[in-house]
């Protein structure tokens, strides 16, 4: 710890004047009892330590950023898309494998999203575009993860679980929508029948 060293020349009403070793009269704030004539040491962090801390922070940021964007596994969705997944199961790269995949990518922004959310969005979008019927979901929407040469089978399995979870969410969502549509239609039909009887 480098610091200012000096003699306390004056200490009045909380204002302290010191004479530094370099011969400069300087006003300082001292929060402990100190008397005229005492030596004063100000412990401050040296600029080198600040610089070192900045370098360390920068290095950690760069390493963290590189690590975030490095692909640990590839997730293939419906033979049309290949998603690069990082160690935190987030999508960092996307690649269309056919025209259908290109169209899907144009409609969605998957980068940075968790793989289950990404798969859910892709499945939702595929239904909207008419590429996928509810009945075909599992058959026409195969999900597969492959490693990037690191042979971390556990991670691959985890990614696949996330992907299946995302797809299941999408299916559940559609089922509940269909049920509510059916309920709505039934309600409408009942009302119509009632009206006819009344007439």
């Amino acid at each position, binding site marked *: 710890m480098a610091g200012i060293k*000096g*003699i306390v*020349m*004056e200490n009045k009403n909380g*204002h302290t*004047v010191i*004479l*530094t*070793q*370099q*011969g*400069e*009269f*300087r*006003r300082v704030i001292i929060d402990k*009892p100190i*008397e*005229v*004539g*005492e*030596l004063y040491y100000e412990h401050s962090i040296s600029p080198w330590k600040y610089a070192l801390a900045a370098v360390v922070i920068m290095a950690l940021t760069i390493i963290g950023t590189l690590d975030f964007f490095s692909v640990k596994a590839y997730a293939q969705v419906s033979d049309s898309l290949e998603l690069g997944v990082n160690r935190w199961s987030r999508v960092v790269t996307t690649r269309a494998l056919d025209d259908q995949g290109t169209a899907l990518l144009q409609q969605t922004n998957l980068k940075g999203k968790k793989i289950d959310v990404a798969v859910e969005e892709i499945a939702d979008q595929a239904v909207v575009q008419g590429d996928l019927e509810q009945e075909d979901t599992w058959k026409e929407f195969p999900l597969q993860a492959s490693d990037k040469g690191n042979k971390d089978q556990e991670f691959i399995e985890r990614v696949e679980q996330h992907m299946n979870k995302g797809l299941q969410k999408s299916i559940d969502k559609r089922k509940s929508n269909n049920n509510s549509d059916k309920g709505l239609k039934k309600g409408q039909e009942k009302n119509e029948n009632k009206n006819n009887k009344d007439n």
Partner: protein
Amino acid sequence: MDCPDKIQINDLVKISVQRYQAGEKEALDDIYQHLTQFCLRVISKTCGKYINPDDDEAGIISNVILDALDKYNFDRGSFTVYLGQAVRNRTIDELRKEKRRPSVTVSSLDTDILSSRTEEAVFEDIIDDIARKQEIQAFEQLLVPFELDFGELVNVSPRQSKTRVQAQRAAWLIAQDSELSSYVITKGMLPHKLLEKKFNLNRSILDRYRKYIIAAMLIHVHSLGYLKPYVLPVLEEGEQWLELKE
């Protein structure tokens, strides 16, 4: 200027204690002021707060001094160390006795004085602080005729090290020349033309930092030993004194 340093204060205390114990009670008058200040600082450090002579904590001082003078013998080492220990112990006792502060324990008192540093070193530092304080008070008085005080010196102190060194050099050169220093002390001004001609000093520095130069010069002229090292010009690497003009 007669400002005793640590060694002189210690010698004075030693001689006066000898005289006192030999029956010359008036010898105490010569050192009583020093001893009081010393005791105040020991109490301040023990309590961890600033203590004034009027504070309750300072009430023990006269008794402890007289007690220490009666019980002390030279086999015990330095008198100030002995007195310091007595003051510290008495202060701790008093604080413990106080019902208002029953929670005060030795460990909650100032750590510096009870830390690994030897008590002797701490008490020696206190004597040094006292000697330094006396010198600073003397310096403050020397500034009065020039309508200067420490607050003003903060404002006129050169911030850049190169400028400060040049101002310190000017002060040092003036102090070395009795004629020049007498001129400054009597007139309260700097002999600009002479300084420029004789020492090739920068006119703008002389103008702008006149008050700082006078203050630094007074420290040199009056040989204020504690402050002198702080205003001695130190040249940076590669920097050279300007040649004197013949």
